[in-house]
């Protein structure tokens, strides 16, 4: 805590100092924070990039980077597919749920319950989530048994919790809540008066959504899609607990890191660099769209 006080006090100037000097010293208050980010975020990232773009002799080379793409295109495709599908389904179901909750007048506690539950579930992920779904839709799961007894065995029709559609179902448990969290403020921004104005001009519900509601929400929806995509793209623990040999990028990185005794393999770092680039593109889009969407929110 002494550090804490020093940083605040370090920026204190009592008005006597010349303006230029005051400005230059003020930056020091951010030093602990910047040093922390440098050590534990920037340095590892630089380490990845350095390893991804050098060969075993240490000279610059893009071959590891391109080889990783060619050698692992299956897991690229797997990760992209699962992320695109869960992001799309998350936007649709999470958006509908958020709209239903935002417009419901009763019961009063519904909204705060959904909001706080979403806060927990969106951050859940991990092994606990995978175990919970094993008991529900695993081969010996409760829902699997109920559906099978009703006359339709999902495991006889290509469904498996260790496989694509199983992952999609499990991922929805954190994708829908994340969508609810990010879209609720945008839905609150839709004003009743717009709807009334549209109705006065003769618009029915469908026309209102097509001409007013959805265009206003569009940047938020697209932004949320990108955020959900990045979220599912980077998920490791859940995927690994569901299937330790899954054809997904994070799981492949892990298996390369684990099997690499020599410390010379470039593949995991090249794959990590690819992941960072793809997520960075999605997150940049998200941040830009969020800025655009905030125009309609107070």
């Amino acid at each position: 805590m002494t550090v804490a006080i020093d940083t605040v006090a370090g920026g204190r100037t009592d008005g006597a100092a010349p303006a230029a000097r005051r400005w230059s010293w003020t930056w020091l208050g951010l030093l602990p924070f910047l040093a922390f980010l440098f050590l534990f975020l920037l340095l590892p990232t630089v380490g990845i990039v350095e390893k991804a773009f050098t060969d075993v002799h240490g000279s610059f080379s893009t071959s590891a980077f391109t080889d990783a793409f060619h050698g692992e295109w299956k897991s690229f495709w797997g990760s992209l597919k699962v992320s695109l599908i869960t992001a799309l389904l998350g936007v649709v179901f999470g958006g509908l749920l958020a709209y239903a909750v935002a417009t419901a007048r009763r019961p009063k506690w519904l909204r705060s319950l959904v909001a706080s539950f979403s806060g927990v579930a969106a951050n859940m992920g991990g092994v606990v989530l995978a175990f919970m779904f094993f008991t529900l839709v695993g081969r010996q799961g409760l829902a699997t048994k109920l559906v099978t007894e009703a006359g339709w065995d999902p495991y006889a029709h290509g469904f498996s919790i260790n496989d694509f559609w199983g992952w999609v179902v499990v991922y929805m448990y954190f994708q829908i809540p994340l969508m609810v969290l990010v879209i609720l403020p945008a839905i609150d921004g839709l004003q009743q008066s717009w709807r009334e104005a549209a109705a006065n001009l003769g618009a029915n519900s469908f026309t209102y959504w097509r001409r007013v509601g959805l265009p206003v929400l569009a940047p938020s929806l697209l932004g949320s899609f990108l955020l959900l995509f990045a979220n599912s793209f980077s998920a490791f623990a859940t995927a690994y607990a569901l299937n330790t040999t899954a054809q997904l990028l994070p799981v492949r990185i892990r298996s390369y890191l684990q099997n690499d005794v020599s410390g010379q393999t470039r593949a995991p770092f090249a794959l990590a660099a690819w992941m960072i680039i793809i997520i960075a593109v999605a997150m940049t889009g998200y941040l830009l769209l969020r800025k655009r969407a905030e125009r309609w929110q107070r």
Partner: protein
Amino acid sequence: MTRHRWRRFLARLGPTLVILGSALFFIAPILSTLRQAMQAIVMPLLTWNNVFKKWNLDGIRLAFDEKAFWPTLRLSLKLAVVTVLCTLALLVPTALFVHLKMPKARAIVEFLTVLPYVIPPIALVAGVTATFRPHARWFINSDYSLVPFYMVLALPFTYRSIDAGIKAIDVRTLVDASRSLGAGWLTTMRRVLLPNLSSALISSSFLTATVVLGEYTISSSLAKQTFPVFSFEFYGRSARGGVSLALLTLLATTALLGLLTLLTRRRWRTRAVTF
């Protein structure tokens, strides 16, 4: 009148179905986890006739009896406490500093705090392998080397929540008032700022703690015996015991959330009285 009501009912039918369907989806895994942890009947033998039979706590006892249960839980709790304290010690002064002294830097700092979103945990692990493993082995060997990386993982939520807390109160007036009454920076911090920020601090601490208690990616990759790592390994040996652990984790998280709600509500009320 009745026709009007009927139409209103129809208009609410869609949203109501959405809410009920979502409730089913989110509650079902919790129920099936509860069943598998507490009912000693394997799934193929479960019928409508014995649904209410053989419920007991054996699965949970199984988990408690594991040798690794307490040491791993203790390690995870210790990591959670240390991470929470370090996060507060780093972020509260930084956020206050930005608000009071460098409002211009606000956008940059906010941008920096969301950067961890771009580096997924598994990539962070690769980065640690590339940098810290060859050059700072002593650091990686310590269990507490996880703390800074957990701080990074939680940074986007924690900073936002502390920042929102600061925005909600008039920091400048509070500081000026306190300073003009003769309080030093230390007293101002301890007697004025921290009490007023308590609900933001509590909620960011809660978020940090849940992140730490559930974190698997980094701890397992660095071969640390944390509670999630133990849960995963235990599930491989005993599915019922592993599921019981999942249930306990879930209950603990819910209890923490309840506590948080209670604490922040009370804080808010006392603040309303004093100001």
